[in-house]
């Protein structure tokens, strides 16, 4: 009953006219970000974060969250019509989405992906509504040792998921941690790596680094990959009238797929580091192994499109749980969202929902509305997105540089931060090119100061003894879960890679 009344309160906050406008803008922008190949939600959030500074905090957070989950909807449109995923979480949607389009079923595929995304997203929000207060309740017993272990768990799981290039993932994280140590040490007041610069006393700001790495870095890499020369490729045409809507058989045959994909996606999304990409690949693989028509997978099976779509949207909702209740982001996108919360002076964590009920429940309620809006947008605005896909990268690129630069400057009116953003862009390009992980760097930059503070507090409490980590029950639980995840996640990654390989073979 408490949850219900909290949700009603959240709805009253979310349903103000101006917040609805912000929500719709966020959903639309998220879909556009998802449609542009090479740009995921992290880049979209980082680039557009400065634009929200003039807004009211609730509207701004609702808009940013809508960009985040809206990108999952948009990314699939290119997967189906172009065989090019808009972002990594929609790679699995190309396996059957594009064959369906080639078989003349692009319309039903587009509608079913929108419906699947809606179901996944909505089930995810329902599970957030029920589970977030429980998570917050449990995490109230956490102290500095647990927060250090959670930060460590977030980093380790992300690095493990990198797979063969794990060493480069560790180096990326260490660069992020190193950048996080710049500035005045809050405990002693001693300057660290400031080199006498007044600009560095407060530390290296997160936003320029995130915009540089995800915005400019990805753009430079897209140019290196030749995206500006190749253009968009051939967009599969779809029937806008007679054969646009799915058949009754499409709905009936995929109803359980939606349920399985939603639950699996949500659970994977809650795990720090795993994220929507792994969730979608796992859902595809699971569905293929359970299906009676497994030979049709990779050749245009509707369940092969619906499974990853429900999973990646449910995963993006699941990732909000550790962010809201523990203050620990599990991915680069949620790290940018955390930065947005911090910018507004809000500190997500165990007491967040209790101390900021209007904002927390307003955000959750807005996710219900956002998913409804996205369902409508992704069905009825398809022609608009097809036009956006056609804008060549060579025109889009310079505009992105401008938005990154002016957006960074607008935050603190600082030229130093703007130059830092350009430097981060160049470093981000090389990191992307040579297999490093910009996501690990950004996550470490956010988690680093938190981890350092927690570790120093822990060792002060324990008088220098590391045994405190195994003497406390919550710490022991976190260590146990971390070990289990470290053993389990590489297997999940292999399942995903295998299913990708199988689908590619079937498709070819």
């Amino acid at each position, binding site marked *: 009953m408490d949850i219900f009344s909290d949700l009603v309160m959240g709805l009253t906050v979310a349903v103000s006219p101006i917040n609805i406008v912000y929500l719709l803008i966020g959903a639309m922008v998220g879909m556009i970000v998802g449609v542009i190949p090479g740009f995921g939600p992290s880049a979209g959030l980082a680039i557009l974060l400065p634009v929200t500074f003039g807004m009211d905090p609730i509207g701004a957070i609702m808009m940013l969250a809508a960009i985040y989950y809206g990108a999952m909807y948009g990314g699939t449109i290119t997967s189906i019509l172009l065989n090019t995923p808009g972002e990594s979480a929609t790679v699995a949607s190309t396996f059957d989405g594009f064959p369906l389009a080639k078989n003349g079923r692009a319309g039903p595929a587009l509608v079913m992906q929108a419906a699947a995304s809606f179901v996944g997203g909505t089930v995810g929000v329902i599970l957030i509504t029920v589970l977030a207060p429980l998570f917050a309740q449990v995490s109230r017993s956490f102290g500095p040792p647990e927060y250090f272990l959670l930060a460590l768990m977030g980093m380790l799981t992300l690095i493990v998921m990198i797979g063969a290039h794990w060493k480069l993932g560790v180096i990326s994280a260490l660069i992020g941690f190193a950048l996080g*140590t710049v500035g005045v040490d809050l405990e002693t007041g001693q300057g660290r790596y400031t080199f006498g610069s007044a600009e560095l006393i407060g530390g290296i700001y997160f936003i320029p680094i995130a915009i540089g790495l995800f915005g400019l870095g990805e753009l*430079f890499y897209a140019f290196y990959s030749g995206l500006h020369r190749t253009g968009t490729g051939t967009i599969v045409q779809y029937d806008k009238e007679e054969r646009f809507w799915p058949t009754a058989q499409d709905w009936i045959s995929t109803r359980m797929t939606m349920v399985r994909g939603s639950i699996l996606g949500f659970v994977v999304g809650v795990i720090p580091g795993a994220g929507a990409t792994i969730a979608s690949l796992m859902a595809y693989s699971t569905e293929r192994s359970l299906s009676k028509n497994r030979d049709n997978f990779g050749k245009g099976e509707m369940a092969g499109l619906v499974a990853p779509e429900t999973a990646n949207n449910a995963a993006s909702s699941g990732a909000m749980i550790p962010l809201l209740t523990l203050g620990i982001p599990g991915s680069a996108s949620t790290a940018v969202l955390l930065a947005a919360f911090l910018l507004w002076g809000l500190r997500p964590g165990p007491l967040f929902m209790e101390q900021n009920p209007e904002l927390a429940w307003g955000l959750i309620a807005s996710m219900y509305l956002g998913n409804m809006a996205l369902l409508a947008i992704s069905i009825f605005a398809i022609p608009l997105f097809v036009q956006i896909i056609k804008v060549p990268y060579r025109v889009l690129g310079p505009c992105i540089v401008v938005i990154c630069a002016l957006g960074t*400057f*607008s935050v603190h009116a600082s030229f130093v931060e703007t130059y830092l953003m350009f430097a981060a862009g160049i470093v981000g390009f090389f990191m992307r090119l040579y297999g490093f992980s910009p996501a690990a760097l950004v996550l470490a930059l956010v988690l680093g100061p938190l981890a350092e503070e927690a570790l120093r507090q822990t060792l002060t409490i324990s008088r220098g003894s590391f045994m405190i980590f195994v003497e406390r029950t919550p710490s022991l639980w976190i260590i146990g879960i971390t070990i289990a995840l470290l053993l389990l996640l590489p297997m999940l990654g292999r399942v995903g890679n295998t299913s990708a390989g199988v689908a590619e073979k079937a498709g070819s």
Partner: protein
Amino acid sequence: MRIAFFVMLLAGGIFYSYIAFVDLDFMTRTGRLGPGFFPRLIGATAIVMTLWALVDELRARNATDGALRQWADVAVLVALSLGYAVLLRLFGGFAATIVFLAVTLSVLNRGQYLKNGLIAVLVPVLLYLLLDRLLNANMPPALITLPL
């Protein structure tokens, strides 16, 4: 380029660690962990990991850098972007953006004079309206005023 990038990271790691070990205290006077504790841990680990990755790279030596054309395209965009960073300081956000977009689009999107011209003017106008007028955010001010 690949090896050079690793060597640059190693140099950065060594410099970071040097400051951590020389300038920052490991413990405070009260016996608590000092400001150098975490940086020393990070720096030492970074050196070990970068050396390990560098040795792997030297052993493999099979990873090739991309074609000259790929590098040329990125180099042009990076150079133009850095030029934009300088222009921002000199001529302010609005004028610098018009110049940057006009030059960059004329290089990347050749022959589309009308379209390029429109984008070079409309994008800065829209961003000015959004940031400066609607959101009351900061646009980079100019050191030198252009007659625009």
